């Protein structure tokens, strides 16, 4: 047990160290570092989607809450002159509060109805951002977002975040912390209650669980991290647009769902693996940009057919398959033996 834990921890530490030295290793390749940063921002968004999915609810509205984070963060810094870090936390909280208010009516319905409600909410948020010209720049978009406030660290000196190879560190560290919190939540008694609600909400009520409050809490936590992801995006892109084809449109919502399904929703690593793999694939097929949706769709279909538990479920799927094969082996050996005997004399 303890050895296993140490192995896991050291593996995790190795990944963190690798992530921190990656820009140096890539010798500051701006393109690769920005792909990675965007992937990390998306991973957080998919992880927030999966947090809602822990209650068996599909939210297609996480982009709407990341929009609150993006526009809120950018405007707080540009118009109110707030510090980047203050804006980051405030916009996470703002998203959470909005989610808490909307959660009460929304979470009384389940399944497809919840999905539709969240989808429409995200669209409503997007349209507000798209047409509120005075505040958000409207159809022209919000441009000239300043870089995140510079930081002075001991030994290293002052770091400016105007280039992506530096901003990458903020993204990686914030995303890692957020993922760690989500991971702890999933292993805690809180998720035990979410599971109970997912399994049988009427029974959960009758044993004294305040079901609607726990559902609202789940949704608010998920949207907090969606908001954080949004703020990170705003200071990554440094200009925002809310038109239909943008990051805040329906296509992105579907993409987030595809990332989760391809990665596998059963494991915490699912969103990470799914997002990374599909991001890399979409970058590789950049020359055939027009066919991107088709390729990703095809991959999603194939994964769903052959790997119902997604890429993160692959090790256990292989293990099961191997065990099944081994338990079948004696009979197949007999079959081979008899085969030889019959073949031999002739």
């Amino acid at each position, binding site marked *: 047990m303890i050895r296993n834990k140490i192995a896991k921890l050291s593996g995790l530490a190795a990944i963190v160290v690798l992530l921190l030295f990656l820009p140096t290793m890539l010798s500051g390749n701006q393109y690769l570092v920005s792909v990675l940063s965007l992937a990390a921002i998306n991973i957080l968004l998919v992880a927030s989607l999966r947090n809602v999915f822990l209650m068996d609810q599909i939210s297609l509205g996480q982009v709407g809450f990341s929009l609150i984070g993006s526009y809120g963060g950018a405007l707080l810094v540009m118009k109110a002159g707030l510090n980047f870090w203050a804006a980051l936390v405030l916009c996470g909280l703002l998203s959470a509060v909005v989610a808490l208010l909307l959660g009460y009516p929304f979470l009384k319905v389940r399944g497809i109805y919840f999905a539709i409600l969240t989808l429409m909410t995200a669209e409503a948020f997007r349209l507000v951002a798209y047409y509120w010209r005075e505040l958000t720049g409207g159809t022209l978009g919000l441009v000239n977002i300043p870089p995140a406030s510079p930081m002075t660290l001991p030994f290293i000196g002052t770091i400016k975040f105007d280039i992506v190879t530096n901003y990458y560190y903020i993204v990686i560290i914030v995303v890692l912390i957020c993922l760690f919190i989500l991971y702890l939540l999933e292993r805690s008694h809180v998720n035990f209650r979410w599971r*109970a609600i*997912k*399994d049988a909400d009427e*029974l*959960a*009520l*009758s*044993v*004294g669980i305040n079901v609607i409050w726990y559902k609202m809490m789940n949704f608010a936590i998920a949207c907090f991290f969606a908001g954080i992801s949004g703020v990170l995006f705003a200071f990554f892109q440094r200009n925002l647009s809310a038109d239909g084809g943008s990051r805040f449109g329906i296509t992105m919502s579907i993409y987030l769902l595809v990332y989760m399904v391809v990665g596998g929703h059963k494991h915490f690593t699912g969103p990470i693996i799914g997002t990374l793999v599909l991001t890399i694939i979409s970058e590789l097929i950049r020359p055939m940009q027009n066919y991107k949706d088709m390729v990703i769709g095809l991959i999603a279909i194939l994964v769903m057919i052959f790997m119902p538990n997604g890429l993160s479920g692959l090790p256990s799927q292989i293990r099961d398959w191997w065990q099944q094969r081994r338990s079948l082996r004696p009979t197949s050996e007999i079959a081979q033996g008899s085969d030889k005997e019959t073949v031999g004399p002739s």
Partner: protein
Amino acid sequence: MAFLEIHNLDKYFGGLAAVNNLDMNVEQGEIAGLIGPNGAGKSTVLNMVGGTLLPTKGAIFFQGENITNYPAYRRARLGIARVFQRNALFRSMTTIENVLAASYLHSNKRFTEIFLKSAADLKREKTLYDRAMELLSFVGLQKQANEMATSLPHGNQRALCVAMALASEPKLLLLDEPVTGMNAEEIAAMMGMIKSLRDSKGITSIVVEHNMRAVLGLCEHTVVLNYGKKMMEGTPRECVDDPRVIEAYLGAETDVI
């Protein structure tokens, strides 16, 4: 003031009166039976006491407190526990996890446990686990503690449901058809269990049941419902022998001819 009082309770589903002007009292320490033919509104009454359904009219008092419009989880906190008609279980969990999840009101989890578990937290966790194990051995399921709850046979699942209801340390237990679908042996065990709960812990029960032998052996006081109305009230023997009750269940002699 009785332990549980139901005053002029009405429940309409659209135009249909599922329960009509029901008055019923249950005294503390009593095992009360609620019987009647199919569709008489027995489960509806139980659902309204448990909080799954809210009444259209009327009032319910539990230990003098008006709980008519309380949501189910608040009733659970007051000490009302349910055993549902179908085997309602947490499907993704093992037997012991089911009981642990049902021990919600006694789990006393701290918010900080998400991040770090202190020695006191671990001790509380251990106490909770021991308590759940005790409940499982009370219903005779300690050996199956780590099996998936849904893979247990029907009788055991029913017993698990009782253990889960007991996990909240209730004062009033609502049992919806506790012995349905059981064999004679399991019925005897379940009846013994409900009785011993009353005798050892003083838990009051309301039992909805079709099995008349179980009702006769278990209840001290029965209410007969027919078409949502109270037909009669008395000891189970009186009720079963009453010609009106027999007519409600089997039809009048003239109907047959």
